């Protein structure tokens, strides 16, 4: 602890800016106390809606380092702490009364407690370097971890080490081993995903906190439970990058929230559906591979017409793909990934804090219209964070629902489970425990109104069309177009997490004197009534997506508009810079 940087290993650790193509922002932290070993990765200072992959992380090798650097560390940054050094003694030495890793004082940051020293020593086990030198190699371990996290080159760094220590083979071995161990630790455990720090364009007066998308989404569900007075049951099976929704909700039992870690994704949605059947709000959270498994049960929920919320935090696929990287390629699965005609509502969140409102909205639709709703988020906004202006709780929508309490047949004698509300077209939510409403429902086709099993051809055709019509009829707000100059001929249409970078690109273009209009879709099914008219009112429509053009294909089919897709499937969000260049081209070519 507090060892001075004598050995070249440590030197290097403290001087990594000398590394080939390593981000210039990485340098010894400002105000490093003498003898404090740590390094910090700084934030580039451009339009912060551009996430790029500008890293922002503090590696604190010990309590002193943490204490020294915390003050000038932006909120939401990553902190990797070397837990081996966070002993009561060391904490006391720098005047910490309680352990900052546990007392919640670091809530605003993304904390990764890692046993840097011990793991480095273990990594160097086989080569018999003296323990002290091994310990010093921990900076290289941290460096390897960061290199993986920010997709930095691997080979070249090792080559660089080789050159640098040509004279001292044992040091090469030690540093290489430490560096690769750090790199592999990042890849193997799914604990490390790049977190982007995003700041909204304008920040009106109010109380703010920094929040990640997954936390916001979980809090949105908590708010839903409170405002709807419904018990909320989350059935979930852990999966990156969705696990944190489960972790967060598990902390909030005091709001009548039950979390069940199920044996698999199919059980998880089954638990949620069973809870909804019982009058709770059933929710299940997962990522793409999990949704692929839930299709059959979603199809059942479509037939049962019960509320159900399915959260999909998208990650890079197909198959296992790149679990810690982001992507938007689950849209078509959300829309069509079930057998038979099984329409559901699909909505998407656009930013970390928007996850809060998207969750509430999704839950509202599910309970009001008694339908499964798929809420799409992705790794970028799920792990990314932004300042969030805290809402006034009482201003949140009233989500109270009405359960059926008595027979609904015209003559008031019978209960008809599939007799619909004339406005919402929803069937009654009649929960077990209600006397007089005993009834049976199931996945076989049901007769309209009575819900009895029916193989009647005309009834089936009617029910299939009704299930489609009732989703299509759900009220969603018109889409709003942002075109300050009012004379734009090119529209950029986006959905989900591309909102930030698209917005930044548009602002940049406008500053450059070009007009461009931006519209962003929250409701992917049903779509806003005015969307077709909006699309047709522009010369060109550009749709940037982190997939091969999934929304574009839906828009083309629905509106026969020849949209221009701009697609990148790199596991990374767009940078506003690249979007700006692309859009500039489109606008110019249209002039």
């Amino acid at each position: 602890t507090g060892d001075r940087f004598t050995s070249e290993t440590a030197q290097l650790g403290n001087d990594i800016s000398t590394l080939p193509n390593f981000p210039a922002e990485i340098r010894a932290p400002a105000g490093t106390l003498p003898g404090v070993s740590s390094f910090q990765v700084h934030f580039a200072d451009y339009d912060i809606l551009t996430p790029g992959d500008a890293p922002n992380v503090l590696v604190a090798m010990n309590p002193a380092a943490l204490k020294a650097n915390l003050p000038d560390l932006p909120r939401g940054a990553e902190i990797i702490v070397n837990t081996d050094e966070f002993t009561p003694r060391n904490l006391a030495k720098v005047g910490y009364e309680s352990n900052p890793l546990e007392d919640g004082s670091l809530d605003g940051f993304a904390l990764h407690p890692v046993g840097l020293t011990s793991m480095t020593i273990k990594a160097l086990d086989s080569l018999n370097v003296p323990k002290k030198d091994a310990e010093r190699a921990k900076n290289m371990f941290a460096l390897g971890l960061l290199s993986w996290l920010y997709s930095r080159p691997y080979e070249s760094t090792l080559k660089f080490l080789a050159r640098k220590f040509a004279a001292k083979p044992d040091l090469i071995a030690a540093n290489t081993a430490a560096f690769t161990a750090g790199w592999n630790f990042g890849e193997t455990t799914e604990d490390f995903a790049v977190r982007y720090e995003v700041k909204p364009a304008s920040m009106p007066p109010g109380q703010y906190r920094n929040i990640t998308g997954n936390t916001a989404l979980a809090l949105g569900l908590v708010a839903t439970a409170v405002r709807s007075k419904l018990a909320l049951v989350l059935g979930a099976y852990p999966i990156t990058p969705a696990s944190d929704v489960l972790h967060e909700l598990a902390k909030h039992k005091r709001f009548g929230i039950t979390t069940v870690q199920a044996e698999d994704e199919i059980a998880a949605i089954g638990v949620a559906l069973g809870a909804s059947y019982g009058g709770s709000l059933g929710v299940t959270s997962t990522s793409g591979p999990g949704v692929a498994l839930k299709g059959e049960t979603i199809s059942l929920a479509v037939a049962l017409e019960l509320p159900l919320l399915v959260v999909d935090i998208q990650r890079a696929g197909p198959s296992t793909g790149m679990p810690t990287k982001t992507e938007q390629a689950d849209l078509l699965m959300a829309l069509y990934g079930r057998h038979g005609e099984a329409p559901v509502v699909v909505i998407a969140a656009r930013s970390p804090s928007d996850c809060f409102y998207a969750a509430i909205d999704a839950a509202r639709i599910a309970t009001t219209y008694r339908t499964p709703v798929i809420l799409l988020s992705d790794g970028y906004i799920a792990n990314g964070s932004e300042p969030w202006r805290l809402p006034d709780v009482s201003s949140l929508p009233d989500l109270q629902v009405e359960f059926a309490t008595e027979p609904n047949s015209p003559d008031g004698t019978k209960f008809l489970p599939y007799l619909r509300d004339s406005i919402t077209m929803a069937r009654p939510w009649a929960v077990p425990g209600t006397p007089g409403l005993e009834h049976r429902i199931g996945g076989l086709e049901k007769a309209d109104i009575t819900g009895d099993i029916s193989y009647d051809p005309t009834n089936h055709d009617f029910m299939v069309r009704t299930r489609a019509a009732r989703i299509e009829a759900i009220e969603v707000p018109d889409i709003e177009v942002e075109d300050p100059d009012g004379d734009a001929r090119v529209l950029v249409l986006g959905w989900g997490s591309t909102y930030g970078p698209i917005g930044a690109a548009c602002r940049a273009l406008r500053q450059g004197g070009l007009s461009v209009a931006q519209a962003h879709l929250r409701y992917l099914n049903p779509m806003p009534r005015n969307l077709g008219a909006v699309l047709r009112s522009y010369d060109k429509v550009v749709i940037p997506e982190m997939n091969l053009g999934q929304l574009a294909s839906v828009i083309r089919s629905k509106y026969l508009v020849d949209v221009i897709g701009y697609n990148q499937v790199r596991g990374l969000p767009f940078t506003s810079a690249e979007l700006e260049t692309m859009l500039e081209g489109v606008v110019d070519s249209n002039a």
Partner: protein
Amino acid sequence: MPERVSLQLTAKDFKSDQEVRWCPGCGDYAILAAMQSFMPELGIARENTVFISGIGCSSRFPYYMNTYGMHSIHGRAPAIATGLAVSRPDLSVWVVTGDGDALSIGGNHLIHALRRNVNVKILLFNNRIYGLTKGQYSPTSELGKVTKSTPVGSADSPFNPLSLALGAEASFVARSIDSDRKHLMSVLRAAASHDGSAFVEIYQNCNIYNDGAFDVLKDAATRDDYLIRLEQGKPVTFGATGQFCVTHPPGAFGLEVRETADVAPNEILVHDETITEPAYAFAMSRLPGLDLRYTPIGVFRNANRASYDSIVRDQVATAQSTVEDPESELAALLSSGDTWTIS
């Protein structure tokens, strides 16, 4: 557990308005009748009773009970029932399933429900065949079974459903037969009063695709020598005149059937469903041969351990008791951690 009151109900009150649609002669009719006659004595209101099933002939069961019910999808009933049970302690939740539904596609949900000890009563109608899909072999069909999908005989040896349940930490395990209403009702009674998961295997005849599968346990000619009725605290004897008994030879782990005459009374095994050590019930589950000779029926195991849903609910209730006004608690939560003000 849902409250029990004395309601002046009869079997008829538990018959739904749907007409029963199994094949004439199907064993499911008898099980349905037994359940409908048992329900009134259980003393739980109809509206507080829920039957959840998967897919299969047996899974049509809920339609015929005048209670709440869900005919869900193949194999998933235990998962759906878990979600209901964990959120609604006031309900009596029953799962009706088949040997394919529970043990083939639904195997994982079944063993996890039993491991967790979720408060649901699982009734497995075992006809040792896939009835609804026209008679393929099931995970309980005997090795070498010739069916549409196995013209030269099946290659998989079957599960012993009770052994599997015990291996999965089941706290209540029993077996009965469709044709013996009195016995079936006694087992349902025991299952209903068990706090936690109850697993009940019911031998059921499919007279269309696997007719007579259990005849040796029913025919007057054989049943006395094949069937063993387990009764709590009673020595395990059987046979028309009780001429056979079950013993547990010293040193052995399995059980043995002997002539009662040759055995000293104190050597005869005395049945105790409450033994916490599952090895006893497990040994009992291994007694029958492939020919069903020496098939014990009754309650094999009935052990107490906290149910999953009660633990989960206690955790939630404890946490909730600390909250006075959810709205302000929510406001506090939202503004927790590190916040700042822009004015």
